[in-house]
């Protein structure tokens, strides 16, 4: 055992030296950067490297031909990466300075990656913010500067089993909080469902179902001065409304994983909240045409959650000009419409929705309408952590006898102690 002490001491010394070499940060909070330097006119040249996840990565090559026709001296190389682990891959790439030129970035990751200083601010001359849905554009803005461009969006609506709704006597989407509650009750009592609605009972991502109600009630995550507003009366009222679905036995609190779709199809669950991807899932289950979608109810507003994917160019990009030109190409309304037809992603550019393919489908049109009133959480670097804490508290709110007021206070304490990570 004694042979250990010398090498351990040496290690300790080396570690201490490394740690003390931490010289400390210069300056206070990160200064906000202005918009990016303008990108030159003319076609793109050189090689453009882009990382994209999932289906977007797989099918992006379909759009490249159109780009290379207009930019013959440019080559675009797409590296698809899995969603599972993408966050880590991008984070480590930034850490090592080995990034591509462009990457698809989840909307809730923008705050964190922008704060590393690894993203290039959006140049003003190439992209017009007004072209995009407001909620989507906001996901790219960190500390007043935009660091990317929304590529595709998703928003949340109520999926409702038409059979159950008709039997319950609900023939049109409820427009207010009271109407929604009444409709859900009717679906349980008269529509033959075990549960009128299945709301997320806390756990990962439940904030995406809860925050819309806070927003509908005129609440927000942050106040004007940047401090958190989790304990505001608007938030507490929204939490009360959400919890009431569980206390009145209108929504299950412990639905086993994987049971949602089968139970919805069988009519045991009247409704649930989700995004456009469930269209495909329900089609696979043979349920096409037997359900409908309802927009969010209105209290002060009828706000839903908006997510999706943003395109960002890296500071360490080798071909900055080419990268931004490619991003601008992907934001053209006609390219966005083609992209929808290729992959099914909802366009983030408003005028792309004029495309007949999107206008023709009433279900998609419903998503499009909701996009006009959809918000995203603030682009603070610590949002992931705050959201996780919020989800934990939601679970307690739904499953224990914690009161909405208590939960709101705890959420406020938690968020404040985590801070905004500036």
């Amino acid at each position: 055992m004694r042979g250990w002490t010398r090498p351990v001491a040496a290690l300790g010394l080396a570690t201490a030296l490394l740690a003390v070499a931490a010289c400390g940060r210069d300056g206070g909070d990160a200064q906000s950067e202005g918009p990016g330097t303008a990108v030159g006119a003319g076609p793109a040249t050189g090689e453009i490297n882009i990382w994209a996840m999932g289906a977007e990565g797989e099918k992006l090559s379909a759009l490249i031909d159109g780009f290379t026709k207009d930019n013959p001296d440019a080559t675009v190389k797409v590296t698809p990466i899995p969603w599972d682990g993408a966050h880590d891959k991008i984070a480590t790439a930034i850490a090592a300075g080995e990034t591509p030129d462009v990457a698809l970035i989840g909307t809730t990751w923008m705050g964190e990656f922008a704060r590393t200083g690894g993203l290039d601010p959006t140049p003003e001359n190439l992209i017009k913010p007004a072209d995009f849905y407001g909620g989507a554009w906001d996901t790219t803005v960190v500390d007043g500067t935009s660091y990317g461009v929304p590529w595709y969006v998703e928003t949340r609506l109520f999926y409702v089993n038409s059979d159950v709704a008709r039997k319950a006597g609900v023939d049109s989407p409820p427009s207010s909080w009271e109407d929604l509650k009444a409709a859900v009750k009717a679906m349980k009592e008269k529509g033959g469902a075990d549960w009128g609605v299945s709301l997320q009972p806390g756990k990962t991502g439940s904030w995406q179902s809860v925050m819309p109600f806070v927003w509908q009630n005129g609440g927000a995550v942050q106040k004007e001065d940047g401090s958190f507003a989790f304990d505001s009366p608007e938030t507490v009222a929204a939490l009360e409304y959400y919890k009431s679905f569980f206390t009145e036995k209108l929504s299950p609190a412990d639905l086993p994983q994987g049971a949602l779709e089968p139970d919805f199809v069988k009519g045991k669950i009247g409704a649930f909240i989700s995004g456009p991807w469930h269209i495909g899932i329900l089609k696979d289950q043979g349920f096409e045409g037997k359900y409908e979608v309802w927009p969010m109810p209105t209290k002060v507003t009828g706000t839903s959650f908006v997510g999706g994917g943003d395109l960002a160019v890296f500071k360490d990009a080798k071909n900055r000009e080419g990268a931004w030109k490619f991003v601008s190409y992907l934001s053209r309304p006609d390219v966005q419409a083609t992209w929808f037809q290729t992959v099914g992603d909802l366009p983030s550019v408003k005028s792309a929705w004029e495309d007949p393919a999107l206008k023709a489908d009433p279900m998609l049109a419903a998503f499009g309408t909701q996009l006009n009133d959809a918000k995203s959480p603030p682009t603070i670097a610590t949002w992931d952590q705050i959201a996780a804490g919020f989800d934990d508290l939601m679970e307690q709110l739904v499953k224990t006898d914690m009161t909405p007021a208590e939960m709101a206070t705890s959420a406020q304490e938690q968020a404040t102690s985590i801070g905004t990570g500036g």
Partner: protein
Amino acid sequence: MDARDKPRSRDRVAKLVLHVVLGLGLLAMIGPFLWMLLSSFKSEQEIREVPPTWWPRDFGFGNFAELFDRLDFPTYFTNSVVVAASVTAGNLVLCSAAGYALAKMRFPGRRSLLGLVLGTVMVPGMVTFVPLFVLVSKMGLTNTFAGLVLPFLVGAFGVFFMRQFILSIPDELIESARIDGAGEVRIFVRIILPLCRPALATLGILTFLGSWNNFLWPLVVATTEDKYTLPVALALYSVGQNETDYGLLLAGSVVVVVPVLVVFILLQRHFVRGIATTGLK
């Protein structure tokens, strides 16, 4: 009935009981694997059914067709094989050499080295991930086979394992060989390695499995698709932002597990008594 018959019938009952107990246990063990195998032939809808079904209602190869159609299988498979084989070979050779030295040789610094190795085995894996990646990238090894293989070419686990095993080899065997004038390398190759066959087979299986299923490291080190290994490619095509393609995932999981099983079946016959004992008098 004479004295020889009684032990035989007792043996037969014991045999039966043992087989039954182990057999029931076996059913419990292979259940999920069977489900995975059977479900890879089902439609997406049937896979998601609750309660889960066993035999597919409509037996189809659709998932496998999609798997081989969408994925550039030969590339990913080759990458996985090359990486896993290199890592396994490296571990078997280098860790047994180091394990032998740490178990049976006396040299200065031996105890410190052993302590360091053991210490590293005990460091939680997650914490070194980012520093390791930055290190590897600064060495210019991103997107190379060296970058995929070198950090795992030896393992503290392997050294610890071989050392423990070699410790149980009697010293007399080695001492007598030394007295006979054999050099250390000769002793290692001619005496130690053959005696270590069960341990080498075990280490081989475990190392191969770990390397074959490694996901996060190849994901982060590879920056172009042609360097992806199978687990990365499988996640790429089956796990989306908001939903998972279970049919593809299960079909892929079945295909990915086949080489591991092959390696296992090939190596497990080396858990054979006899080799370990015939060297002794």
